[in-house]
């Protein structure tokens, strides 16, 4: 593990989000790199000071609670006011079916004591992440940084995948691209494309594949490429990998329809894939991300 990787992953280390393997890698690096060990110790100490100071601060929530309770009582029993729902069929089906491994270089170091022992953490739960994301869209109406302009979407796809034709290749029959944004799932950037036929919305998540492991039941095969599928919280998810891309399809339609979307996309994408990998510089994805973020400024 490099010093730059330690610096990057330090926040995950402190929050306990690193899996056991990554945590062990980081701990081994700290044992052999005094500079990083010192930097991490400074961070740990700083966090400790903040926590102590916050714990000592006098916070009296009683007045606020009293007002809230009074208002709740005043509104009861007429508490039938509901948060407006976007209809499920028109809502963006933002679930992901992907299981990624956090790829790190392996080092041939022996096991050594850690400076600050961290409990082993499970890998990021993409499925729960995706379900929460959908919940946010419907329940909390969080503002999202969507692009709606066709030219901007095409540019985003070009910058994110290196090939604007992906936009068309992923389009289900009878659908058109409605909006797009960058999202982050499993600590990796994905292009989130939403297609609509006027009634249903289908999400396609795409990124340049880096050997991610997809897990799920095999539903179909397209020219030797397996199409996997599974259900999660009333949403159907299908996924495949071409030589260049990892693609995940999400919809609220039946599984066979969702798998069909993925199958046709796999056929179109694979047909245009080059045999040699084109490395999409990470800076392009970062630029795409910035582009999406600036839209909300």
């Amino acid at each position, binding site marked *: 593990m490099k010093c730059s990787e330690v*610096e*990057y*992953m*330090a*926040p*995950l280390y*402190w*929050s*306990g*989000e690193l899996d056991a393997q990554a945590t062990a890698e980081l701990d081994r690096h700290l044992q052999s790199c005094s500079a990083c060990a010192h930097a991490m110790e*400074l*961070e740990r100490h*700083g*966090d400790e*000071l*903040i*926590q*102590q*100071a*916050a714990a*000592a*601060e006098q*916070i009296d*929530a009683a*007045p*606020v*609670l009293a*007002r*809230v*309770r009074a*208002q*709740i*009582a005043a*509104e*009861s029993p007429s*508490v039938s*006011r*509901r*948060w407006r*729902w976007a209809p499920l069929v028109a809502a963006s089906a933002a679930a992901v079916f992907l299981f990624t491994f956090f790829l790190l270089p392996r080092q041939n170091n022996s096991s050594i004591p850690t400076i600050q022992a961290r409990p082993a953490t499970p890998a*990021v739960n993409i499925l729960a*992440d995706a379900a*929460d*994301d959908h*919940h*946010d869209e*419907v*329940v*909390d109406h*969080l*503002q*999202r*940084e969507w692009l709606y302009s066709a030219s901007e979407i095409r540019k985003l796809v070009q910058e994110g995948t290196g090939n604007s034709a992906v936009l068309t290749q992923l389009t289900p029959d009878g659908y058109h691209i409605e909006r797009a944004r*960058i*999202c*982050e799932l499993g*600590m990796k*950037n994905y292009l989130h494309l939403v297609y609509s036929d006027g009634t249903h919305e289908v999400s396609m998540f795409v990124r340049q594949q880096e050997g991610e492991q997809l897990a799920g039941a095999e539903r179909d095969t397209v020219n030797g490429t397996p199409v996997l599928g599974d259900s999660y919280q009333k949403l159907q998810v299908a996924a495949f990998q071409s030589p260049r891309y990892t693609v995940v399809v999400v919809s609220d339609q039946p599984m066979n329809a969702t798998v069909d979307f993925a199958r046709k996309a796999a056929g179109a994408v694979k047909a245009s894939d080059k045999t040699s990998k084109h490395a999409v510089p990470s800076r392009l994805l970062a630029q795409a*991300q910035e582009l999406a*973020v600036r839209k909300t400024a």
Partner: protein
Amino acid sequence: MQKQQEFEQIALVHAQSLLRTAFRLTGSREAAEDLVQEALLRAWRSFEQFERGTNAKAWLFKIMLNLSSRQWSQLRSLPPVHSMEDVRQQPATELQPMANAHVLAALDGLPEEHRVVLVLAVIEGFTCKEIAKMLAIPMGTVMSRLGRARARLREQLQQVDKNLSARAAIAASARSDSPAAKKTADWGAARGADARRSPDGGLIQ
């Protein structure tokens, strides 16, 4: 009534945490209370959509942060709850190591985008993934902001430490220059000289 009791147990238990973060966001106790009150009432009105068993605290913080982002521009000009200026005004005799007030002043002095992620991560214990969802920003952005926030806070605290040390040195020097201090020092020196003489009055080498 049952719904109210459930809301009490699931949501209102987090009022203090919400208020603590709201202080750091708004810099005003009145504004913080208003923000938390509105956030809790919004949560109450959408409580039926809240999925039991999921992270209620994260849900509440999302609502509050969403509200605060709209009110932020109005509150940004308000002074922080603790300011570094207040800390510098403290008398030089307060020489205790890194007081809580110093730390909070350093925290409140950070740019808001750094302050928010640091508060959510370090004080409230949210993961980077949870913070990313609350703020609707990529997780990588959360991670980089946390790294910078910790570095900037460290710089601020190191500066405070230098200031404290300098004031301590000045205070110590001022005490040693006083007439009473000189008398004490002379007496100490004399006692030392006596101790170095042998019983017959000669110097002990």
